[in-house]
């Protein structure tokens, strides 16, 4: 409730005074909105304007409007492979994140709040650790003489070190590790909100624990799961750092192609058309996501 509302609702304000008050209120409103102006201008100049430019660059070829950059995306096998690779890796990472994230979120949601908070630190700690540190950790762990290969060989699970890094395997492992918290956090939030009485009621009515879980708990946790998996999928689509380092230049994804087109070939048109496809896909997915889970909540703040 702000002053202007008080002014409007105040009894006995009528006549010439009302006009002055209304004008004052309007002025104050403008000033308050002015507070958000610098931030909005910054976003407008540094984000909306350049991204709009990319849209323009994507439909221009040699100073004339043309759709040639988009045609290339569907006709050139190299681009088709990259788009297909990106979708494949994203689906794979999302599926693994669901398989690992659901049990973890479920366990945390069942624990008493104090223990759950400690458990949540385990989920949040990696988020606070620099992305490069986590990627580097996997680079070291997965290398030929790394910890994982040493363990595999010593346990007799592998006759000799397996190539785990600088390929698709390394990319998927690293991306899963980095994106898992993004699935666990919204899923945990929605599981916590499920009233345990529902499950107890099901048990009281004779449902086995498995049946109570499948018919009551699981359906109620679906919005959180959908939000988490969509978020992971969206983040996968535009991921650059981890695939670039753990993929070793062999597993090419959209973001890496955009970087290469700009830095190596100065091909702005080709980059822009890929960028537009990426942006539109991400935008659509975020719109769907927003229907399941309000975006500010996704950002992790209640």
């Amino acid at each position: 409730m702000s002053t202007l509302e008080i002014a409007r609702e105040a009894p006995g304000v009528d006549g010439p005074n009302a006009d002055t008050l209304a004008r004052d209120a309007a002025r104050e409103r403008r000033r308050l909105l002015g507070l958000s102006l610098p931030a909005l201008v910054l976003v407008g100049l540094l984000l909306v304007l350049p991204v709009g430019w990319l849209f323009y660059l994507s439909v221009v070829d040699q100073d004339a409007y043309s759709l040639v950059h988009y045609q290339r995306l569907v006709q050139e096998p190299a681009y088709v492979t990259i788009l297909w690779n990106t979708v494949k890796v994203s689906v794979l990472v999302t599926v693994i994140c669901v398989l690992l994230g659901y049990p973890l979120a479920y366990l945390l949601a069942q624990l008493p709040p104090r223990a759950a908070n400690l458990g949540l630190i385990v989920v949040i700690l990696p988020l606070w650790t620099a992305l490069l540190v986590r990627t580097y950790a996997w680079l070291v762990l997965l290398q030929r003489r790394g910890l994982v290969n040493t363990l595999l060989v010593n346990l007799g699970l592998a006759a000799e070190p397996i190539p785990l890094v600088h390929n698709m395997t390394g990319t998927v492992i690293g991306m899963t590790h980095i994106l898992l918290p993004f699935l666990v956090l919204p899923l945990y939030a929605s599981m916590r909100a499920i009233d345990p009485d529902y499950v107890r009621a099901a048990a009281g009515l004779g449902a086995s624990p498995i049946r109570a879980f499948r018919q009551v708990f699981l359906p109620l946790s679906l919005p959180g799961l959908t939000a988490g998996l969509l978020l992971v999928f969206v983040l996968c689509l535009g991921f650059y750092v981890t695939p670039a380092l753990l993929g070793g230049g062999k597993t090419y994804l959209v973001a890496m192609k955009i970087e290469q087109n700009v830095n190596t070939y100065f091909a702005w048109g080709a980059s822009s058309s890929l960028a537009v496809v990426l942006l539109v896909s991400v935008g659509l997915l975020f719109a769907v996501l927003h229907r399941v889970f309000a975006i500010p909540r996704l950002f992790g703040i209640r």
Partner: protein
Amino acid sequence: MPGGPPVPVSHARRAWLYVLGGLIALFLVLPVLVVIPMSFSDTVYLEFPPRQWSLRNYRAFFGSVEWRDATWVSVRAALVTTVAATVLGTAAAYGLAVTRWRWSRAAQVLLLAPQMVPAILVAIGLFYLYAKLELVNTLLGLVLAHTLLALPFVVVTVTAGLASFDMTQEMVARSLGASRLRAVLTVTLPQIRHSLVSAALFAFITSLDEVVVALFISGGENATLTRRMFSALRDQIDPTIAAISTLLIVISVGLLAAAQLLGRARPAGRSG
């Protein structure tokens, strides 16, 4: 029985869940923690556990002018970004929270956009713009870009803080004769200070960790630490990075502890 198992299942029958959950939790934290002992290894192969302990990697880091310069650039950029993003974001969040405006919702989404647009697009967009404005490889350009990226966290955190603050207190202060500015400074801001500090911590860590945008717009003597780390990692695994990573982990854990003490430790958003 709050928190207890909703269905009468014994702990023994759920043992598999604890084991599975524990393993997944280890998968999340171990990779990060293993880097710490490795950074004290004496060989270039980064064995675990190291056969020979040494501070070689730390000496290499502190002895290198390039690494030191890059660290200094990152720290300066992160500090300026923290101030700029916290001030701009708090002002915006306050302005949008206290007035009802037809476009408030749209404005809020716009302020979150820098974290929703994939980092690579922000990076090439800024690169294109900065090339025209001659801001490539400048500290100013870097700070502007990082402020843009940190804004969403500040806006969301402060908006959440304001949502739990009772605005009538501000009205009371004003009815007692305080100006709006004074009411905000003496009544509102002190009460949402936890949110403000969390917001500032998010902004700092966003800037310090950021790689993709820095890869395009920071270079030369203004290359950030993460930018140099990325290049070093692409070429070969430089053991010095184990030491740098350990230092970064120590900073993250310190900031996370600070945020936990303030009761709000939920950054999310970007990966990159």
